[in-house]
């Protein structure tokens, strides 16, 4: 067993860093909780009939007035905190993962192609990236959201909230992938195995995806983790600003926004518990991302 672990440097390093192991566990717990929320949450916070105002503002079980039915307390509407958090994390993760996937496919695809073909195509892609860089991520996300608001008829807006958010976040993140993929592709293009394949007359698509792509995955993997964290943070920020998910289908960000109203009045759990979960989730993803970065770039250890 030990020999197996030692063979793969990444695996071995993993077992040597307690911080990373903890992060992985935390992330895993939250993710599993979020994925299985409909089955393990006590109530469904979207179902208006499953909670009532009379249960509102109950503190967590270890405080005075807390009840065992609601282990972490309830919010002002009477919704169980645990359920809200699980469903909220679920939404945050769904949006985060989807946005990141779209950004990855779009960014890597364009970056690869730009690096491979060079010339005009590369220049165009880079100009678009430059322009987008002039507008920071939040701006892009907000813009897209604003446009959607203005363009879509009001009835459809609610249903498409999640989609709009996902697209908005994805469009603000793709540039990072594109630039890294492009830079890595340039490096690989000078390598002799690529020249061998080109010289043999292999099809460009094969050269790009079968030859080059496996060799640039390393840095891309790091960015994927970091961007997943960014996507989740971005969504939380948008929700916090009131532009993301609304109160009746809240994500963690929305919950924090709601909780902020109670900052001064003493119902601290409505604010701090969702905050804690959000931070735990993002911190563990970032720790994992950092770890991956160290694995792929030994000089930074």
């Amino acid at each position, binding site marked *: 067993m030990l020999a197996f672990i030692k063979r793969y*440097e990444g695996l071995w390093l993993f077992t040597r860093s307690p911080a990373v192991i903890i992060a992985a566990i935390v992330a895993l717990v939250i993710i599993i909780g979020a994925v299985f929320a409909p089955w393990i949450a006590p109530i469904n916070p979207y179902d208006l009939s499953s909670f009532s105002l009379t249960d509102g503002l109950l503190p967590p079980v270890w405080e005075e007035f807390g009840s065992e039915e609601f282990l972490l307390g309830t919010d002002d509407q009477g919704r169980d905190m645990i359920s809200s958090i699980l469903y909220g994390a679920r939404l945050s993760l769904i949006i985060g993962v989807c946005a990141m996937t779209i950004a990855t496919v779009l960014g890597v695809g364009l970056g690869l192609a730009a690096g491979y073909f060079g010339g005009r195509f590369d220049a165009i892609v880079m100009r678009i990236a430059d322009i987008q860089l002039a507008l920071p991520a939040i701006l892009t996300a907000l813009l897209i959201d604003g446009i959607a608001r203005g363009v879509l008829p009001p009835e459809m807006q609610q249903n498409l909230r999640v989609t709009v958010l996902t697209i908005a976040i994805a469009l603000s993140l793709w540039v990072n992938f594109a630039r890294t993929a492009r830079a890595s592709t340039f490096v690989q293009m000078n390598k002799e195995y690529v020249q061998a394949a080109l010289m043999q007359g292999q099809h460009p698509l094969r050269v790009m995806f079968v030859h080059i792509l496996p060799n640039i995955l390393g840095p891309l993997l790091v960015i994927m983790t970091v961007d997943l964290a960014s996507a989740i943070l971005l969504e939380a920020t948008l929700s916090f600003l009131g532009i993301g998910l609304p109160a009746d289908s809240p994500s963690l960000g929305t919950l924090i926004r709601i909780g902020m109203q109670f900052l001064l009045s003493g119902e601290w759990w409505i604010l701090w518990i969702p905050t804690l979960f959000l931070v735990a989730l993002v911190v563990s993803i970032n720790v994992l991302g950092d770890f991956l970065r160290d694995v792929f770039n030994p000089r930074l250890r």
Partner: protein
Amino acid sequence: MLRVENLTVKFPSRFGDVTAVEKMMMAIAPGEIHGLVGESGAGKSTVGAAIIGLLQPPGYISDGTLMLGDTDLRSLDRYQAHALRGKRISMIFQDPQTSLNPLMTVQDQLVETIQAHEDISTSDAQARAVDLLEEMGIKNAATRMRSYPHQFSGGMRQRVVIALALCTNPELIIADEPTTALDVAVQSQVLDLIRELANVRKVGFMLITHDIGVIAQIADTVTVMRRGKLIENGSTAQVLGSPTHAYTKQLMDAVPPLDRKIDRFRVPADEDGLVAGQGKGDKAEAWLLAGAKEDAVGLTLNDVTVTFPGTRTSIWRKPDPYVALENITFDVRPGSIMGIVGESGSGKSTLAKTLTGLIKPASGTMTLGGGALPGGRARARKHASRQLIQMVFQDPYSSLNSRHRVGTILAEPLWLYGLVADKDARRALCMDMLNLVGMAPETIDKFPHQFSGGQRQRIAVARALLARPKILICDEPTSALDVSIQAQLLNLLKDLQSAFGLTILFISHNLSVVRQMSDDVVVLRNGRIQEIGPSEQLYENPSADYTKMLLSLTPVMPKDWKLG
């Protein structure tokens, strides 16, 4: 002056401590040039780094005595050790381009080094710097000093580097591959400079290199290393001319001579127990011969010129194009080996890329065995030449896709050119081809990084052969390999060529290697042909001045040393 005894250096790893250097011994007197020679991984650079205290962490010295005069180098603390550097021992590295701080002028770098060890005014330090640079052969030193490193050419930079190492008058300079990155002419000048410094200033030099010719030219004494251990040492004439240890003998056997052409190199069996070139691989051999029904094919270039767009530096003027190759005309006889020799920047690689269709010539024509050979994008992906011309590249570490298994890499030409339709038949053929080039058939399921440089080059040769080519272009195929591995690969190429009647273009900067391989030779310089002719004739009686210069300045072992 320098005395090293029982030096042992270890590197901790997750598999336990790895011994990089074991019980090393060495002695260098003032004014002595001591060569430290060995193949890659021998530990030469590690010895140098250990002596000056620049071991890459986490490496450490686990045992041994290091005495510089009366000073015990191992007993010094961090600050004393650092004070010693530059003042008594200095070190210079291989690449002059990266050895100098790009943001500081040469003057500033010299002055700061001088003032680091002596209490002397800036103007005095500057004056000393000027004198030193002129001594190195840099004219107008006072003005030139104020430039930045990137404004100097490669050879000049290395002289600046040597000046920097000398400016504090150390007793010992450790030179780690100081001339490997330089052209032959420049190398010759720098070597002469080192010799003069040793004679006149009595500076001791530890010359670390893998190039035996360099050792032969200026080293007084030499130590041969292998896998961290000392193999043999003594005066250069004795060690290189009449070696006593078996390994040294093997090493010397593998060095390609410049003065004559030998049939095959004498090589021992390598670790796999296989003697290169004498693998089985009968089926592969039969398959290759079947494809060689037609006669061998020749290659012709006519007035080929290749240009690249120049870099733009001014808004007003359009830049002049950079001429990489100009009016290249030569003919490669079918079934022969044409050697192409030139230094860096001569256009050799551009020529290879043009022939394989990666670069389009601006003008001129190419013909392949009678039919026209289109250039660059004009050559369709399915054009016959894609199969008929194959290439073996220089860097074995990047010419095989490290994410693919050997089997995948080898099978590509087979299905790409429709040579073998059945998947199992392909696999069998690949395994047999591996045998033919002297590799075990199990190689097929492994990844490239599991093999050494020499082994990877053999896989690369197998890949090229599996396309059943008529023309094989070898672009510096052995430049990244150790001299003994090089010998094995050259033997392999010779055997394959004579068995299958391939036409080969052998490109290299190493004159000795080219002599061993070629029937005809083209000498390139700055994109133009300097001379062309039958190999033996060109080497014995060169007509172009450039060829004469190259031949005379290439460091070789004096003939009178060899007794055997």
